[in-house]
């Protein structure tokens, strides 16, 4: 056990996976000598050699496309995309190949590959460095998509992703890279893909969030707690496949639901969550499902981003509205 931050946990996971399985290779822009834009791959080239950790030219489509090829030929590639917005040049390779190879070949070929990339904002960066991609990636059948919110989960989920026989996109909340330390086991373990986690129990409403926002939601829950409102907070952890069971069980208990995310609202990930709650726990709902999200705009420049990103106060205000809305939506007597 050691105290470490999220980026170190990722670094440890990569190192461990490379040490355990020589099929694991790590590559992307600046991941070699420099150790990555954020340091996730620091030391890996020195430790595992240039053949297994290497820089690529600046070409995201080829980064993902060659990963597909490597996976077809027996490796377990872990590709890094440098910033969130630079997944878009590679999206064609993801949709048309990474996520489709298994169904195209009726299960005869699988693509054990991981695409890692920073995710989300609140870091006062230039354009295309703060985007949230859950919807774009979550809507692609055949792809798994995970987002850790803590060093422990980061290491465990990344190890699970590398060992998964399906392609996994691993979204790393940039804001959390160095935000806090946590005890993380030195050795091997994994956190299962596809399972959400109740991180704070409560009886008055269910709040689903993930990544960096989870921590704002927990602060908001604390605010509400002082007002006598008990929010049950769920860390979604996996965007696809969704853990509906955990979410619905909670909503059936609390009767109220909110989802909190950074992405724009329209066709955002909260739409799916609100819809599945409305479908799956309709009779239990005492108030409409609530989406607390980004505005339907391009993420504003750094000095104005605070208008876009929600803090605990703004989240608390939204949750409070949901928690206190008159509970007359014919629930429970359905």
């Amino acid at each position, binding site marked *: 056990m050691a105290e470490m931050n999220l980026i170190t946990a990722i670094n440890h996971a990569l190192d461990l996976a490379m040490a355990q399985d020589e099929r694991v290779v790590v590559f992307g822009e600046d991941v070699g000598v420099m150790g990555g834009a954020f340091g996730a791959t620091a030391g890996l080239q020195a430790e595992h050699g240039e053949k297994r950790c290497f820089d690529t030219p600046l070409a995201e489509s080829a980064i993902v496309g060659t990963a597909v090829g490597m996976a*077809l030929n027996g490796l377990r590639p872990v590709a890094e995309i440098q910033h969130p917005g630079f997944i878009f040049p590679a999206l064609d*390779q993801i949709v048309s190949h990474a996520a489709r190879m298994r169904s195209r*070949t009726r299960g005869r070929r699988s693509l054990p590959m991981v695409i890692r990339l920073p995710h989300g904002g609140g870091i006062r960066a230039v354009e295309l460095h703060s985007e949230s991609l859950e919807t774009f990636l979550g809507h692609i059948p055949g792809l798994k998509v995970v987002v850790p919110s803590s060093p422990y989960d980061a290491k465990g989920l990344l190890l699970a992703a590398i060992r998964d026989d399906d392609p996994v996109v691993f979204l790393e909340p940039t804001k959390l890279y160095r935000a806090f330390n946590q005890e993380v086991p030195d050795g091997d373990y994994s956190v299962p893909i596809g399972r959400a986690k109740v991180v704070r129990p409560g009886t008055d409403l269910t709040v689903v969030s993930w990544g960096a926002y989870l921590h704002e939601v927990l602060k908001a829950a604390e605010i509400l707690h002082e007002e006598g409102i008990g929010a049950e907070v769920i860390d979604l952890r996996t965007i696809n*496949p969704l853990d*509906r069971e955990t979410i619905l069980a909670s909503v059936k208990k609390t009767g109220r639901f909110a989802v909190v995310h950074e992405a724009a609202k329209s066709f955002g990930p909260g739409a799916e969550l609100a819809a599945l709650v409305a479908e799956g726990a309709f009779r239990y709902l005492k108030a409409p499902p609530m989406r607390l999200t980004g505005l339907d705009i391009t993420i504003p420049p750094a000095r104005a981003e605070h208008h876009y990103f929600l803090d605990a106060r703004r989240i608390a205000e939204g949750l409070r509205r949901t928690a206190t809305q008159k509970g007359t939506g014919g629930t429970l007597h359905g």
Partner: protein
Amino acid sequence: MVSEEMLQIMDERGTVLRPDLVPALSDVEWLGLYKAMVRARAADDRLQEAQREGRLLIYPPNTGQEAAQVGPAAAMGERDWLVPSFRELGAYLYRGVDLATIFLYWAGFDLGSRFPERVLPITVPIGTQMPHAVGIAMASSIKGEDTVTVAYIGDGGTSTGDFSEALNFAGVFNAPVVFIVQNNQYSISVPRLKQTRAETLAQKAVAAGIPGMQVDGNDLIAMYAAAQQAIARARLGGGPTLIEACTYRLSPHITVDKHTRYRRESEVAEWRPREPLRRMKAYLMGRGLWSEEQDAALYADYSAAALEAFRKAEAEGELKPEDLVKHTYKEIPAHLREQYEEYVRFLEGEVE
């Protein structure tokens, strides 16, 4: 690094111009390669017919491009990888793809992608297979294996970003990969001259700093020789090569394409005498290895075999509903299982 002249070893009448460059294959082996072209032609003819009969939904004919496909395929080693585009019938068959599989693919059957391990399935998005080929080749290097990857693309495909990115990666990583551009002069209706201002497609290699060469794609001997050399170099660690095979699509783009909308019949007619089978046949006949009678019989045999393969293919069952959800992930996730079960309930008329 790009040769100035197009490599031609045998002229359009089957006369060998450059005996010094003819690879050392036995007569039987050359005959074998020729037979592979006839097999592809017969299969292609039958597939086109099958489409007209409505047994296939669509089909991209191959006639005229057999040498560009059989030559490189034959030059490959047993454990080498083939990364096709979608019009490589000659190469598929040579590398062990079952004709029934090809038939099923274009018939729109689910079971159509049963390709051998080292032959990737047909992919539709143009250009996107190039990085896969490079990735496969990089993996071979990383694993210390000496297999080579041969990848196909069309003239239109050379305009895609993925093509350029892949060539550049191949150069940087010295990947053991050979790119074959089948320049059949058209990308659907867009003629080669409007696809790029480059004088040759071989010179696209210069951007990546890798060798490029232009080959008469209808000259089986030249295609074999060029591919053999490039594959050998790649196998020995010499890195990638781009080969432009200059050929011509004698048929429409796909069976339903009315190609006279964009090209004159006279142009097609001009190219017809240059096609690869006729040429190789003349070569073999000139050497006393083959006759018209044998040729007719061979074509008939392959035709019959093709029809038999189609019949076998059509006897295969259709996809069952459960197959639908089985291959999205290794294990069926809960939500998908539920969706499937709901569908089954509907099918059974058991809906609550």
